[in-house]
């Protein structure tokens, strides 16, 4: 009980400090115009300008932060599931997920500290202005970071001390506080980013006119918050999935293989759950960017950066193929899975077809000779596949196919006993058919109408995909009552399937760096869009080639960091024998 009281006191103390900090943040803001930096305000060190250094550090910090913020979210859900299902296996797995996150936490802080130093070193004037705008809110961030550390370590290290009964609920509450603080922390940092893209609470000269709340609540803040929140979950799931695959491949006992197979499956599931709604959140963010500034939207999607959305399609297509492949391999874990393997080829056709449509560019980069042979800049047959209605159809059908793979896997271990199961199946088949028809119909409608209708008709497509998923879950859930559950033979997975789990974090990491480059580039030659000009020699959008090199470099570096984290995590389990024991 003494321990519990100590936690309560701690919670009260931090709440008081938080209130004090909020009061501090609400202080007066200096109403001076944004400074206009000159070339002399951008120092170089050893001939290296600020951009590559800040870019690499920011990206590394973001990768790590996304991971360490996401893990406690799904760990809390898994822990709660373990309590409700009275199954200790969930608890063991949740703790192991946290162990990986803990190892990465200090690296996140180090990358963040490095980024902060680099920003003040290379961009002192810009940072001076941002500090003036955000004032005490920056201290709130620092305080949140302290709280995040406290809750994180208390949550992890009190796991066994608060394991059963009421104490378990106390532990879950600490997890909830940790996630509340972590998510707020990210939202605060997001407000700095969205302020530079779409400033609010300041006049056209950059002088502060509004409150800190008005400054934070810019038009892009909430879309970015949602997008990052979901993406973090998908990303975190993908990374711990790779850890499970690594442990699966190196496991020496059938028991360990079964444990890590189950962990890999759960991680893949988390990645899919975070990933399925992600395109819609991205769509919202993009729509808000267009609504804020048409010019900014066109810079992102209509100019040279549009090519990156084709690369994005390749990466997301790879992710979906890997996820589905893993789920199909999983059908082998149950005896009932065999009855669905025949359907896999049809799902594969939809996925590959959708993938090909998605990667088809609208405008091709052609030589004059090629334009002459082609009779224009657009291919007659493939050109129409380059515009958004085709992409929207492809994406939604691919998401439906992915959900179907998951549904088949789930059904493989359950034989329904409900008398109306045959009718339920008929209703589900009809739902998929009509849903597909609606998605294709809305897409075709988009082809024969002006842009505003095209964009408008994409919303029913999203609603259709979500409807199919929700109704299938409901019908399956009702049909599954009293179902005969057959054993899932965890560990009965091919080695190849584990490599699909390695594809996910690599593709996700590359994708995040790529899209981050676009998000940052849309500011063009502004530090703070339309308010504070970038007058450094690097005030241009880097070429796709240069960006590709940087993105790949940071991705490889992050993979090295993650391998170190995995190694560190499993080091905990290896013990050196005492010299007397080691003697033959």
């Amino acid at each position, binding site marked *: 009980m003494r321990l519990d009281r100590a936690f309560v006191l701690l919670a009260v103390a931090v709440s008081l400090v938080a209130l004090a900090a909020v009061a501090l943040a609400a202080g007066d803001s200096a109403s001076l115009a944004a400074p206009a930096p000159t070339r002399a305000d951008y120092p170089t060190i050893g001939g290296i300008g600020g951009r590559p250094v800040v870019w690499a550090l920011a990206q590394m910090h973001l990768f790590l932060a996304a991971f360490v913020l996401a893990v406690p979210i799904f760990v809390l859900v898994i822990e709660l599931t373990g309590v409700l299902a009275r199954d200790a296996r969930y608890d063991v797995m949740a703790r192991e997920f946290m162990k990986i996150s803990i190892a990465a936490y200090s690296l996140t802080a180090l990358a963040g500290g490095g980024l902060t130093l680099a920003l003040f070193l290379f961009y002192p004037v810009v940072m001076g202005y941002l500090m003036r705008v955000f004032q005490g809110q920056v201290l709130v961030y620092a305080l949140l970071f302290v709280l995040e550390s406290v809750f994180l370590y208390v949550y992890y290290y009190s796991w066994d001390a608060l394991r059963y009964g009421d104490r378990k609920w106390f532990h879950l509450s600490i997890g909830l506080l940790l996630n509340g603080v972590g998510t707020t922390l990210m939202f605060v940092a997001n407000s700095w980013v969205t302020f530079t893209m779409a400033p609010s609470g300041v006049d056209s000269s950059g002088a502060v006119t509004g409150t800190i709340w008005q400054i934070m609540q810019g038009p892009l803040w909430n879309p970015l918050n949602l997008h990052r929140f979901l993406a973090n979950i998908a990303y975190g799931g993908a990374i711990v999935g790779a850890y499970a695959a690594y442990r699966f491949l190196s496991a020496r006992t059938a028991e360990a293989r079964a444990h890590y197979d189950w962990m890999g499956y759960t991680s893949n599931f988390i990645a899919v759950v975070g990933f399925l709604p992600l395109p819609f959140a991205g769509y919202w963010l993009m729509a808000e960017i267009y609504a804020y500034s048409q010019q900014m939207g066109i810079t992102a999607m209509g100019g040279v950066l549009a090519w990156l959305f084709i690369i994005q399609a390749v990466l997301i297509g790879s992710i979906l193929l890997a996820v589905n492949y893993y789920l199909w391999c999983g059908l082998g874990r149950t005896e009932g899975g065999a009855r669905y393997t025949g359907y896999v080829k049809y799902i594969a056709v939809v996925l590959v077809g959708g993938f090909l449509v998605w990667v088809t560019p609208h405008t091709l980069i052609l030589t004059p000779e090629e334009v002459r042979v082609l009779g224009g800049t657009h291919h007659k047959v493939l050109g129409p596949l380059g515009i958004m209605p085709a992409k929207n159809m492809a994406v939604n059908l691919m998401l439906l196919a992915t959900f179907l793979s998951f549904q088949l896997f789930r059904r493989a271990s359950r034989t329904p006993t409900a008398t109306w199961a*045959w009718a339920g199946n008929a209703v589900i088949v009809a739902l998929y*058919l*009509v849903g597909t028809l609606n998605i294709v119909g809305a897409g075709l409608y988009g082809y024969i109408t002006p842009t505003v*209708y095209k964009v408008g008709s994409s919303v*029913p497509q999203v609603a259709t995909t979500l409807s199919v998923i929700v109704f299938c879950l409901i019908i399956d859930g009702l049909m599954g009552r009293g179902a005969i559950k057959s054993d899932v033979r965890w560990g009965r997975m091919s080695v190849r399937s584990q490599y699909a789990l390695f594809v996910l974090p690599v593709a996700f990491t590359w994708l995040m760096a790529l899209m981050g480059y676009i998000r940052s580039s849309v500011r063009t030659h502004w530090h703070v869009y339309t308010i504070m000009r970038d007058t450094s020699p690097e005030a241009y959008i880097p070429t796709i080639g240069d960006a590709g090199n940087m993105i790949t470099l940071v991705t490889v570096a992050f993979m090295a960091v993650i391998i170190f984290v995995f190694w560190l995590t499993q080091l905990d389990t290896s013990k050196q024998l005492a010299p007397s024991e080691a003697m033959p």
Partner: protein
Amino acid sequence: MNRLVVFAAAMAAWLAYFYAVDWAIMDVQGLPVGWDLMPRL
């Protein structure tokens, strides 16, 4: 036979559902719905 009837009924019900949802979403966005949509086709 029963299976076919249920399937047909389900198809009709889902068509009605998606039509209603599409209608509502397009209407909220101020875009043409129902017969107004036809001249554009």
